[in-house]
């Protein structure tokens, strides 16, 4: 092997390892777009219904919970399928070191958000606080992956945390929401702005910033 060939070979090793190890996108853009669009549809209807029917709730509290669990399931399954396809394309195992790290970072805030949020809806009937906690915990989970995630995902995490906190302050300060017969519409609004709008913006930002595939050296 000539000096140049050996140098090229070592550069190839470095590039391939860096590609494998450096960045792990735990939330794929098409899954975020699908989840975001579903979230926008699921949140728009209760808000529209409340506006046109004097604040009347479009569904029961448990139906709200089941709707969002169904959207979570659809988006998660799609995300897993897309991550598996990406792993195959890169000739990597599906459960890579990146995925293990992402799961380790995701699990604690998602567990807290999941249990507290479901508890708030099922037993305390506080849908808005549950939606805010889901948004904040999801944002914190994304920020937990900051050391190995692409910048767009870290920005999404910050967007969830900042938007979640702003919405919390707006909700806590404005006690007119107590006058509503059901807090389904403010909860849906929180879900639509965070899980709907922010995911759609994230997906579009990833699609538009994607660089054309690099030309491989012969």
């Amino acid at each position, binding site marked *: 092997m000539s000096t140049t060939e050996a140098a090229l070979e070592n*550069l190839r090793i470095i590039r391939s*390892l860096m590609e494998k*190890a450096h960045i792990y996108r735990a939330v794929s853009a098409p899954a975020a777009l699908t989840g975001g669009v579903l979230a926008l549809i699921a949140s728009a209807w209760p808000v529209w219904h409340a506006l046109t029917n004097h604040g009347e709730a479009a569904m029961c509290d448990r139906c709200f919970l089941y709707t969002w669990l169904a959207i979570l399931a659809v988006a998660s399954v799609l995300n897993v399928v897309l991550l598996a396809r990406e792993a195959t394309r890169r000739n990597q195992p599906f459960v890579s070191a990146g995925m293990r790290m992402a799961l380790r970072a995701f699990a604690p805030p998602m567990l807290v958000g999941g249990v507290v949020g479901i508890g708030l809806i099922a037993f305390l009937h506080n849908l808005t606080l549950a939606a805010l906690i889901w948004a904040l915990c999801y944002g914190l989970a994304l920020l937990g992956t900051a050391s190995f995630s692409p910048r767009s995902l870290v920005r999404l995490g910050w967007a969830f945390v900042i938007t979640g906190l702003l919405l919390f302050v707006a909700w806590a300060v404005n006690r007119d929401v107590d006058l509503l017969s059901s807090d389904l519409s403010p909860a849906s609004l929180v879900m639509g702005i965070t899980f709907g709008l922010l995911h759609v913006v994230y997906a579009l930002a990833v699609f538009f910033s994607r660089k054309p595939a690099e030309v491989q050296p012969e």
Partner: protein
Amino acid sequence: MIDFDQLDKLIHEKGRLSIMTLLSTRGEWAFQDLKNELGMSDGNLITHLRTLGTATYIKETRDESGTRPRTSYELTAAGRKAFKNYVEVLGEIVKAAQQT
């Protein structure tokens, strides 16, 4: 003419090059994660890590607080500089070959 004499021989070995590359990508790597990613045996990986540690290119940290002790590794400032120089020399070799 640039040649391999200018390359850091310590990093140039494929196993150690792979370790240095992974450590350069993010702050800290656990021994088990390095082993899984590189597919090396324990003995082989330990030998390379010792060599890099002796050259002060990497730093070892042992965390005994959990139920199982966890050893992790990260690049030192000297290691990061050496790796950067190594990649630059490789790039110059390739560039010089393309110009001739």
